[in-house]
């Protein structure tokens, strides 16, 4: 059975209140969720507390999830809201939508080698918040542009251009690390 089908079944079991299913879900998603939360939460000091709040919300509200297949988007939306609620990111309100929806060709989009993961991780932390966020979702969940748009609450065009520019910035950052 492929991962999506398996996940769908686990989510359905969670909706029925089955404890073991929640534990399975936690095993699958907690590590990557923690990574995502740390990328959004500047110094990452509150990541554990926030993660706990996220799982509590998942537990309380999973029966309201309309489509088990959209679990990942739903989960990351909760995570994102918890981070912003907790830290009241002031700059989120005023930061102008730099580079939003600029047309991109997509042909010269950089790709990244998994052997460079350490460098990539360091470089990721130096990107702008909104660039780091979309790339994190892209790298750790391989989410579609549409799903990322659903998580970060913007248009698919914005996601496309953000990822394009984020990858370029990431590439530059990695090159500067190489000297």
């Amino acid at each position, binding site marked *: 059975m492929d991962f999506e089908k398996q996940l769908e079944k686990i989510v359905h079991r969670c909706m029925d209140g089955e404890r073991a299913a929640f534990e399975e879900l936690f*095993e699958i998603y*907690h590590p990557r969720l923690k990574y995502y939360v740390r990328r959004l939460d500047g110094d990452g000091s509150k990541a554990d507390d926030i993660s706990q709040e996220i*799982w509590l919300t998942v537990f309380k509200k999973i029966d309201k999830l309309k489509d088990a297949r959209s679990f990942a988007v739903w989960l990351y939306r909760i995570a994102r809201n918890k981070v912003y609620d907790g830290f009241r990111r*002031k700059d989120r309100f005023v930061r102008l939508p730099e580079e939003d929806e600029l047309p991109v060709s997509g042909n010269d989009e950089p790709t990244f080698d998994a*052997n460079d993961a350490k460098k990539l991780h360091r470089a990721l932390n130096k990107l702008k918040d909104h660039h780091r966020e979309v790339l994190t979702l892209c790298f750790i969940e391989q989410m579609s542009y549409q799903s990322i748009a659903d998580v970060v609450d913007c248009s698919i065009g914005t996601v496309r*251009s953000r990822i394009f520019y984020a990858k370029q910035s990431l590439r530059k950052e990695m090159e500067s690390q190489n000297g």
Partner: protein
Amino acid sequence: MDNNRKLFEGLLKADGIAPEGVSESERIAFSKMLDGQLKPKKSKPVHRPDIWRKIMRSRITRFSTAAMVILAVMLSIMFLDRSVSTAFGIERVIAAYNKVRFLQVRQFKATQEEPLEFWIKSDEQGNITNARYYLPEHFQPEDGAKLATWTPEKAELWFKRKHSYLIFQSKRIEGWMLSLLEQSQPKLVMKKLLENQKAGTVEIDIQEPQEKQKLATITVTYKSKPKKEIYYINQATDLITHIEYYRIEKNQDVLDLTTEFYDYNVSIDEKMFSLKDEIPEDVTVLDQLNQLIGIAQGEMSYEEAAVETVRQFFQALIDKDYPKAGLIFSGISGEKTKEYFGWLNVAAIISVGPAKPYPICGPHSFSVACEVESISGDGEKTIRKFGSVKARCGEDEMHPDRWIIHGGI
């Protein structure tokens, strides 16, 4: 292993996170959380905002509230004691609301746990004079949860997640706020029902049980729409306790919404109808009521005005005239403007425009692209591109000919 999987694992490891599974301490913490949650749930106490608790801590308020409860009981007795009784029905329910000045409303969507809440005060003619709203995140997820207050003179909106507080008077938003109340103000709901009954668009079934402690019901079925409403009415007071809204699918009634009514004629402290004492000190204030915001349109076309708004905003940043930039940026303070945009250190405007219509934010809303040169702390020049700065004016707003930059709220 494919590159994606390897990349995912590599990133997590680089952050000190084991990609497969979780640590024992995390597992224990999660297990404890599940233990706590899987216990039988007790019924939850009704949510009230912090300000309510603060107000209720005051002895004076407790005393006056107690007095109002006694008054409410007396009113109930007056209702019970009435010797002249009109035939039970919609008119009688409407008449009962003539004596209601205060009430609280909760509106539950069937698919959501957290209700919308309203606190309403009316005058002797039944017109709404003050209202307070709590709109949870699911109502408009892009905004997050909101608290709002409304009077004919002033409206306040506190966007909790966005940490911003808007003071304004706007017919457009006022219309939206009042339309929310119209669905929740029982007297208006019943008047609408009476109109529908007279127009013959609904079928109405009234059940008035002999046992007066039981609730009477008015069941309304729409002739040309697949929907149904059930109104539950306290026979002692003729006041509605709750309304259930159904849609009809394949001959089945599917519950969409329940509106519950509480605390009839329990006085609501005036403090509840303003947010100024509740908002955090560091919230971003957008005062569009007590200052002249934006730039005047004058003889410019809409497109020209949109471009000019964005140009003047960046020019004010170049001039370090943060109060002016703040007035253009939706009316935030100069201090906040400096905090938010000072770091940009804009040195020159390279290009502004053209303006493209952006009707989602109103009929005279435009998206303006622009490029500016900014200088970093170490003196390096950077070209910054802003693909879509939103500028608009609103004919129905307080300042109909003034243009502002908006966004983020």
